[in-house]
């Protein structure tokens, strides 16, 4: 058994000790899956395979990838014109750094996954929508695309078939809202990145009004392994009911912050203690945001849970991107909430009122409480705002809903901290920060 059988995304990076160029990638079964898909499988077979594999979107929402692909009209039903495949490489969820690592170290596994995805939905145009700040990943991708094209893996008549793929990079000009897939498509079309009305969903009407699939970087990177080794192998990788591996990451005051490709369903405590080396001396773990800034806090009672979609959701949060942010006992939960709401208020696209006006109000109130100007009744105002802004359907997209997740859970788990700020008129953590 090779390392590629247990770590299909990063095994090769581990073997090579860093950046996997085209030669190194090919030497580790690279592009075998794309060759197999294009020369011996029908698009429908690939869609079914990915559906059966139980691969779920790794960008945060966890939507079943094969099901998404199956919504793309095929043949005459697709009408005239191009179909598009888009990779969401706009990694901007605070605390998330897994896609950068993949792009910088193993760009060909992404390209291979996209070739297979494009063939499956019969799209001959594809884009990697890349964060403007990701300069190193951009350089790596430019090089990797040139190498893959020179080898005949991109362009016209791939692997001697009649399938063509034009794969390009779109460098973004910023804004978190571009991670929302319809906002991303507006940005790709050169417009303001405001989310679109759904339905229609992108598989029916996406980029330039044509059928479009948008998947996260890590999602595409799972596809070559599934095609190469099959559904049974893929499902066997997971420890719980979810399939495959997951790139988990940890930031905060641990001994070894970083990221690791592990079986999906690895318990939180194992990630913190074993992989991240535990908390630094003098610090205690108080809470975690399990999958980025827009996920609910989890606390001690949850630390033995498995990091998978269903388990974390049942605990009232979301696995999200799987990259966890750790809050230690030196961090004030009120001030950390203020930091989070500052981000979401700033990144609101401004289109709908509850989000545009509500989030800055929440941020201002949190600042007041943090700086000792909190008043009786403020927590009830925050509760009400959380309920109103956070309820799906009250805002145009899910930006505000995501913003409220860490706030509502902070108000629940760290309420005493909020109350103490208001009661004493100061922050009890002030001066405790190192």
């Amino acid at each position: 058994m090779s390392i590629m059988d247990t770590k299909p995304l990063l095994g090769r990076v581990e073997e090579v000790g860093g950046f996997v160029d085209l030669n190194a990638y090919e030497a580790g079964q690279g592009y075998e899956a794309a060759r197999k898909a294009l020369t011996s499988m029908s698009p429908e077979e690939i869609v079914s395979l990915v559906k059966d594999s139980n691969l779920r979107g790794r960008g945060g929402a966890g939507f079943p990838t094969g099901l998404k692909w199956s919504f793309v009209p095929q043949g005459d039903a697709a009408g005239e014109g191009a179909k598009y495949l888009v990779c969401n490489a706009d990694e901007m969820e605070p605390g998330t750094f897994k896609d950068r690592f993949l792009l910088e170290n193993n760009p060909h596994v992404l390209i291979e996954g996209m070739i297979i995805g494009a063939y499956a939905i019969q799209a001959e145009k594809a884009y990697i929508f890349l964060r403007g700040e990701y300069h190193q990943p951009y350089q790596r991708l430019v090089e990797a695309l040139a190498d893959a094209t020179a080898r005949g893996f991109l362009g016209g008549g791939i692997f001697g078939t009649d399938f063509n793929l034009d794969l390009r990079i779109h460098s973004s000009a910023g804004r978190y809202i571009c991670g929302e897939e319809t906002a991303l498509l507006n940005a790709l079309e050169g417009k303001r990145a405001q989310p679109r009305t759904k339905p229609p969903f992108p598989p029916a009407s996406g980029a330039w009004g044509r059928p479009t699939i948008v998947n996260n970087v890590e999602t595409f990177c799972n596809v070559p392994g599934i095609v190469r080794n099959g559904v049974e192998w893929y499902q066997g990788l997971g420890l719980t009911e979810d399939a495959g591996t997951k790139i988990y990451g940890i930031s905060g005051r641990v001994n070894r912050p970083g990221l690791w490709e592990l079986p999906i369903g690895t318990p939180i405590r194992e990630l913190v203690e074993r992989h991240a080396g535990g908390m630094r001396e003098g610090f205690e773990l108080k809470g975690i945001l399990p999958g980025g800034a827009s996920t609910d806090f989890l606390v001690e009672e949850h630390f033995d849970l498995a990091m998978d979609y269903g388990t974390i959701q049942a605990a009232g949060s979301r696995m999200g991107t799987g990259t966890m942010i750790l809050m230690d006992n030196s961090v004030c939960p009120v001030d950390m909430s203020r930091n989070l709401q500052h981000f979401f208020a700033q990144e609101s696209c401004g289109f709908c009122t509850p989000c545009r006006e509500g989030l800055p109000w929440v941020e201002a109130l949190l600042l007041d409480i943090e700086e000792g100007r909190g008043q009786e009744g403020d927590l009830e105002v925050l509760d009400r705002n959380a309920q109103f802004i956070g309820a799906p359907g009250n805002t145009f997209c899910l930006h505000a809903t995501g913003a409220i997740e860490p706030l509502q859970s902070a108000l629940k788990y760290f309420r005493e901290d909020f109350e103490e700020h208001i009661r004493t008129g100061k922050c009890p953590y002030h001066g405790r920060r190192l």
Partner: protein
Amino acid sequence: MSETELVHVLSGEEIAEIEAEIAHLPDRESAAIDALMIVQKHRGWVSDTSLHAIARLLGMSSDALDSIATFYNLIFRQPVGRHVAMVCDSVSCYVMGADGLGKAIQEYLGIAFGGTTDDDRFTLLPIVCLGACDKAPTMMIDDELIENVTAERLGEIFGRFE
């Protein structure tokens, strides 16, 4: 200025790069963000004159283009210094002390966030999560990501950019 003269506020190189983007897009307006970024790459920022010229080149109104330009935080509609320093203020860096670091950097450069040093050497801006959270706190100067930033390292870090 006539339409043609206005477009030629842009250099031949800028126009060629923008046309190369347009060539693989369904329409000219779809290149709006690419065009703004191309001009900014050459000039550091997008002035009103540049904006009007780009709008004409793409066949769209200047107001429509400005609504796009002002939406995106990496498109500068004001002049910036020779180098743009962006300091992450998102949650992982916050947990690792980014607030204190932000204050130290403002003191070091003698400007507040949003400002430019008198010698036009640095413009200082906050930025959202740079995706290197295991090496927090982080910042970026121009295209370079800088990890594990501490107040003690500021002289060494900023000293490399003339």
